[in-house]
């Protein structure tokens, strides 16, 4: 049944990824404007540069907002499917609530990752189109390849990948938990309550992660020769912390949905 639920969740949210070509076009336009700035007749006037600069800024801001916008649309679907009148359909399907929640978590994560990939492609388009962008990219790529020969770098990349996956899962689980709890505790302004809860939870989480960041800095400065090894150690700690947080919020949400859900 997971496959079927996931298919509908992913299809409903994945359609927003069709906006990706528009984002790429925006980036191409921004890079094109930067190229135009190099034209001799343009450099004599400040005004066109300002206009072009502002346009480039808004193009890039739109690109940056893309994954966030997609995440917001995914959360809207979560709220509508579970807590609006659509919940009468969702929760009377022959599917367990665990499967429904897991599908929402996985599909949101998958769509966000794809939005991130679309953003990376947009970045590549931008870098490769601006003047000297290609040489910058080649140099960056060469540095990255040579970095793999350093001891501990491969482990760092693996840890970075797992940290990314777990952090994304944790953020989604926290958002879902906040929405569920906000819906259950507030009589009115349920979305505002969910946002407040998310902010409070995030504030607590940030306090802990800031503490670990200090630990990270201390590790780097106290072991300049083995900085990468120290960094990997802190990454493992982050991984454990995020895994614990994800487990708590995911299963907390699952418990609320199974035992306390009351549709209006």
């Amino acid at each position: 049944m997971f496959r079927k639920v996931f298919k509908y969740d992913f299809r409903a949210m994945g359609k927003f990824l069709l906006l990706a070509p528009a984002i790429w076009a925006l980036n191409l336009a921004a890079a094109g404007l930067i190229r135009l700035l190099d034209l001799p007749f343009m450099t004599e006037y400040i005004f066109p540069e300002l206009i072009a600069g502002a346009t480039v800024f808004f193009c890039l801001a739109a690109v940056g907002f893309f994954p966030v916008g997609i995440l917001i649309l995914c959360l809207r679907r979560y709220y509508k499917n579970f807590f609006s009148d659509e919940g009468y359909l969702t929760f009377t399907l022959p599917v367990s609530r665990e499967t429904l929640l897991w599908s929402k978590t996985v599909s949101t994560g998958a769509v966000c990752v794809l939005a991130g990939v679309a953003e990376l492609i947009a970045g590549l388009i931008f870098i490769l189109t601006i003047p000297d962008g290609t040489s910058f990219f080649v140099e960056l790529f060469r540095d990255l390849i040579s970095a793999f020969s350093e001891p501990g770098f491969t482990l760092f990349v693996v840890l970075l990948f797992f940290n990314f996956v777990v952090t994304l899962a944790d953020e989604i689980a926290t958002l879902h938990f906040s929405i569920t709890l906000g819906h259950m505790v507030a009589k009115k302004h349920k979305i505002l309550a969910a946002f407040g809860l998310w902010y409070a939870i995030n504030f607590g989480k940030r306090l802990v992660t800031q503490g670990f960041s200090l630990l990270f800095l201390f590790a780097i400065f106290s072991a300049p020769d083995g900085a990468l090894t120290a960094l990997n150690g802190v990454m493992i700690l982050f991984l454990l912390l995020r895994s614990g947080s994800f487990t708590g919020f995911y299963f907390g949400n699952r418990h609320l949905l199974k035992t306390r859900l009351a549709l209006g």
Partner: protein
Amino acid sequence: MLLELRQVCKQYNNGNVVIRDLNADLPEGRILGLLGPNGCGKTTLIKMISGLLPVTSGSIRIDGRLPGPDSAGIISYLPERPYFDPVMKASELLDYFSDFYPDFHRDTAERLLSDLKIDPKSRMKTLSKGNREKVQLALVMSRQARLYLLDEPIAGVDPASRDYILETIVGQYNRGASVVISTHLIRDVETILDEFVFMGYGGAVMAAGDVRETRAREGRSLDELFREVFSYVPQSF
């Protein structure tokens, strides 16, 4: 018994007892009218049977199964409100039901939509409230379920459409199944009912029995009997 309710109680978090010690059995092949005034707990009871709400105490069994994903496969539930995503097309809803319910008959649903002159390509948000309810009913009644739970199926539609809806219910339901219809519009539904339960406030059973026998014994319609039974019931529990 297809549906067994034993000492079912429902108390909300605010302390409100909506249903208290309700016992009932429903065999296969019967149409039961769950009749009562507004706020007496009809919708709450249907939500508990469908698995949307947990019982506070007591037990509900549907063909021996507890309410949940297992029982959802044999229950066809029509809530008292529009519950489809407004941006979905009727044809997409047919795909959705086909995917999740193996007992769903797509050709039956398409025929019902055609009878209703509803274009399968139309989105739910473009349909009138009455037509949305008819689409819901068409989908719900196109399943070969064991138990149909219909919560106020005729409350929001005009009198002419009510006849169509009642005909659809009687014409489409699986003969080996049972139907529970919750409503306070007794005059409209009593002709299709086999059994009835008059629910009072707090889920108290004020009267119950076979519809034809009761009408013959009392010498009046169920609607008249309902008016007499509930003429002295306090409006809050």
